[in-house]
């Protein structure tokens, strides 16, 4: 039955966790009593200020380019590593463990930390931000794709072995076609995430529409902020649409 003592205990522990987390985060809905302030504040966002639109668009392009480069480099570097980091395709135990270690390491460091380090070392601008996104995405995509490789059907691989093909041919030709749609899926999701990340990296000096949003916000130009936010939403939606279009074409 569902109603067991063990389940009750789980429920109790869950409630306890929620309670303590709310304490720690000062979760307090009564603060919404001053909801009028929020409306006052948001009303300053409108009407939107269109005069800076050309600059915003060129900054958006920069953001898109950052996100695209960071994620595509992540894919290009992460894809081969993922084959080393999957137990069924790793050429040796040593490389398997090493590559997994490297992937966990770069994945465990958030982009913002890479960003802070690289922006300090290389100077402000989008280039360090691209590198920061790349590093993190190598870790994430490498890990995700290695899981796809491990979950792929071993049958075709065995067939390639029986044909007498070299191991890496067998891996490449029997696994890549199987996992390709999912690889693209993961890639486009990471591209979308990279857009949001590049906004945050913009806040710390990485350029693009993120930096503009941050500056507009800090200088109280809320009517520009609203347009920045709108543009960002449009970009994210467009990339999402592009992603599903490409996926449907491939599958």
């Amino acid at each position: 039955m569902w109603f067991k003592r063990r389940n009750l205990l789980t429920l109790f522990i869950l409630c306890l966790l929620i309670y303590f987390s709310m304490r720690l985060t000062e979760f307090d809905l009564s603060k919404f009593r001053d909801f009028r302030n929020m409306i006052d504040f948001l009303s300053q966002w409108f009407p939107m200020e269109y005069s800076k639109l050309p600059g915003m668009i060129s900054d958006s392009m920069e953001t898109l380019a950052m996100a695209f480069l960071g994620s595509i480099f992540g894919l290009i570097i992460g894809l081969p590593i993922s084959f080393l980091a999957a137990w069924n395709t790793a050429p040796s135990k040593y490389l398997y463990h090493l590559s997994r270690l490297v992937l966990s390491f770069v994945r465990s460091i958030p982009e913002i930390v890479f960003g802070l380090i690289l922006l300090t070392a290389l100077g402000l601008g989008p280039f360090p931000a691209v590198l920061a996104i790349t590093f993190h995405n190598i870790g994430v995509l490498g890990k995700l794709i290695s899981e796809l490789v491990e979950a792929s059907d071993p049958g075709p691989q065995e067939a390639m072995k029986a044909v007498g093909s070299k191991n890496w041919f067998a891996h490449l030709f029997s696994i890549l076609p199987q996992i390709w749609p999912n690889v693209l899926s993961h890639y486009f999701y990471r591209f979308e995430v990279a857009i949001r990340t590049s906004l945050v990296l913009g806040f710390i000096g990485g350029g693009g529409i993120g930096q503009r949003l941050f500056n507009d916000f800090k200088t109280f130009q809320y009517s520009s902020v609203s347009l920045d936010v709108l543009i960002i939403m449009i970009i994210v939606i467009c990339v999402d649409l592009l992603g599903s279009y490409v996926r449907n074409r491939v599958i």
Partner: protein
Amino acid sequence: MLEIKDLSVRYPGGDQNALTDIDLSLSQGDFVCILGKSGSGKSTLIRSINSLQKPTAGEVFWQNQQLSALSEEELRKVRRQMGMIFQHFNLIPRLTVMQNVLTGSFGYRNSLKNLIGLFTKEEKQEAHQVIADVGLENMADRRVELLSGGQKQRVGIARALLQRPQVMLGDEPVSSLDPGTSNHIFSLLQQMHQTYHLLSIINVHDVELAKRYATRIIALKEGKIIFDGPPDQFTAKQFEETYDSRQAMVQKEPATN
């Protein structure tokens, strides 16, 4: 041509041998069907022949070469002389019939040309030839997941033929097909056997099929050979011994319920 000497296989962690002291000598022209219950070692025996399964003891000799003594490169050369077809076809999904068949030539290539998917005109012609051999000439550009089970196995056979094999290994190639299709596949295998002068070694569950097509039947039980001879000597008695049952022999009569 193919000699198996005292071959024993035990899987890691297993408490029993999958195969025990198998001695066999097979030559070109033999159409061998291997019979036996599930778990009798049929699959292990087939997979030992192209060294997908390494022996625990004993040896497999192909044209006087001891398989376990070969380098990886030499083993590849042996494997490409042995086509193999599988119960679940093991085709590469999302690729076309043509692309799948062309992978049969991978044993002959080392260069980067494979990587960019470049195949020579001769290879494509040869692939068209084997696709026609198996009767799929109109489907060369169709993706394999759109094919029926029988058609998929034909692709598997075409891929194996593109290796220009001397041996055709079948690991229960018709076990996931209906009886009519199974018969078609076997008659195709027999045809290819004759056209390309093969040694064919096929695992099969259906005794009738084996008796119809084989020139030699080998029955396994608990990893040992309990029968090895021409099909007409495989009688009800041998059947009973192989499968521990008599009822299946009368399966041709219509079921009463």
